[in-house]
């Protein structure tokens, strides 16, 4: 089994390298000159002095060839150094260290909410299929799913702050357990909950229609056992897969959320850096994002054989 994981990791590394290369190249050749952008930000009386520009360029190493810069980047990467922000001359590592925990906290909290609320609701909807309970749950899930983050956010704010006057405007970040985090957390969880509800419901429905459930009932065992053992176990596999997918997606749902609510996490970091063409920062976040996506996929892959005995022996080679 470890061979399988190792195999997957090995296949992943070249892909990541290509991704880094492509993204780096895209930004390098396309994004426009960061020096120029830097200058555009400076106060108006700073002169556009070509010598100073050239000197700056040289100092930042931006006048070397693509290959030289890229190699240095990779080299630094292997040492755990994500480079320096072009605009702020700070270590990207530092920037990430500050921003990452915020995003991670939010994401983890949302994950917990999503699992605790979403799975049971989906199961309930499936068990009471086609009743008003089912329609209510499904309808709500659909509504949650369809509303974009940046719509739900402001709407909720209008509703809760101006309408019901429950709290003040949540802009900025004061920690996970502060009132400012409530609305962003709700908004972040909306779509994931919706997806989990629908997936759970459909997984349970599919299992419920299987022949072996009929056999289980024919044996005269209690309904509770049928649900908790015969239905729940096979259902875990698709649900865990969905959880994995949703988590991977949450990594980016964060971006809009953080921008809207002014939360200083990785999402806002990358949004701002992209507009500024500050590509070491952008690259760093893209890398982290890909890592997380791959990590979740890997975790799901590892869990699979544990959840579904049918998969256990046939692990030689990957799927294509």
């Amino acid at each position, binding site marked *: 089994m470890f061979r399988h994981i190792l195999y997957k990791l090995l296949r992943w590394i070249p892909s990541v390298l290509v991704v880094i290369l492509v993204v780096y190249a895209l930004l390098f050749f396309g994004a426009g000159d960061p020096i120029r952008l830097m200058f555009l930000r400076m106060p108006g009386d700073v002169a556009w002095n070509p010598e100073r520009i050239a000197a700056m360029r040289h100092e930042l190493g931006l006048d070397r060839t693509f290959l030289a810069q890229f190699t240095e980047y990779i080299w630094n990467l292997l040492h755990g150094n994500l480079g320096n922000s072009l605009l702020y001359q700070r270590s990207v590592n530092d920037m990430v260290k500050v921003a990452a925990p915020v995003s991670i906290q939010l994401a983890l909290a949302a994950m917990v909410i999503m699992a605790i609320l979403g799975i049971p609701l989906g199961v309930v909807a499936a068990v009471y299929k086609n009743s008003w309970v089912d329609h209510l749950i499904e309808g709500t899930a659909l509504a949650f799913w369809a509303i974009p983050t940046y719509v739900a956010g402001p709407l909720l704010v209008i509703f809760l702050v101006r309408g019901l006057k429950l709290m003040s405007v949540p802009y900025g970040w004061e920690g996970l357990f502060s009132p400012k985090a409530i609305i962003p957390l709700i908004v972040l969880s909306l779509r994931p909950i919706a997806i989990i509800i629908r997936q759970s419901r459909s997984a349970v429905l599919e299992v419920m229609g299987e022949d072996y459930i009929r*056999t289980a009932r024919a*044996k005269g065992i209690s309904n509770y056992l049928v649900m908790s053992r015969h239905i729940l176990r096979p259902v875990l596999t698709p649900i865990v897969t969905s959880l994995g997918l949703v988590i991977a997606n949450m990594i980016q749902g964060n971006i809009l959320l953080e921008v809207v609510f002014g939360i200083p996490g990785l999402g806002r970091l990358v949004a701002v850096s992209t507009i500024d063409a500050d590509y070491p920062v952008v690259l760093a976040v893209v890398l982290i994002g890909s890592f997380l996506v791959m990590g979740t996929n890997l975790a799901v892959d590892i869990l699979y054989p544990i959840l579904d005995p049918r998969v256990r022996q046939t692990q030689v080679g990957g799927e294509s």
Partner: protein
Amino acid sequence: MTVLLDVKHLQTRFKSRKRYIHAVNDVSFQVHEGEALGVVGESGCGKSVTMLSLLKLLPPAARIEQGEAIFNGDDLLQMNSEQIRKVRGAQIGMIFQDPMSSLNPVINIGTQLSEPLRAHLKMSKADAWERSVQLLDMVGIPEPRARLSDYPHQLSGGMRQRVMIAMGLACKPKILIADEPTTALDVTIQAQIVDLVKDLREELHTTIIWITHDLSLIAGLVDRIMVMYAGYIVEEALVDDLYTDPRHPYTIGLFGSLPDLGGQQRRLTTIGGAPPNLEAIPTCCPFVPRCKYAIDKCKIENPPIKPISGSGESLHSIACWVDIRDRREA
């Protein structure tokens, strides 16, 4: 012989979107203690649905419209879910067609076998496990103890079906309903399973109801056969009588389509036409469109099932207006 199960006027329908499918129409029969009853008919004739109705194992779209099924003095169809749960597995067991899809793929054999034991006989986990070893041995599975930790996909088709049989008989029910248990298996395995059931029947004195579409299979197994068509019972007889003297046009058609190993080579005959549309209950006999012997009366009224004249107490009944001995061809 005592009557274990007495079914009267059972009618079951399925609702699908706006239509109704009349799967079982006015079915009445009795099952006697110790006998082996075969139920024969083509796909869709209602044989499975009849038995599933008795144990209330139907999908949500189905409704039992009327009927009663007296077992042990109680009407099964009137029972609530807790009462019927106690009957299932303990008094009446049922095994199904495809053992791969009928066994839970993510739970091991031992647990699945132990479940009815613990639910009905209140055995402890350890006791149930032990008993499961004996059960597997009883159905002829080698190395039974090791097999308990296996999962269904690790066993062959024949072994899986044996496990199903063991599960069905675990609590020694009075009746075992076998719904086409051999249809999904190889011919050689089929024979083994049939033999196994015969042996177990003798050993445990279980009453067997065996559903199949394969007439040749059950000849050596059952005492009596019910032939079903379009949700009705069209002929009922002792095995020998049915095979030597079939009276209903449908039964004759079924036998005509069986290849004959010993006798003369002849073209296999088929029953012309197509299976009936169950969306409407015809007022006429449902077999009319395909019947070579139909007379005018058949197109007007649906014949009730009656013992044939001169049969005395031989239990041979048909649902037909025509006595085919008088007519070869209409």
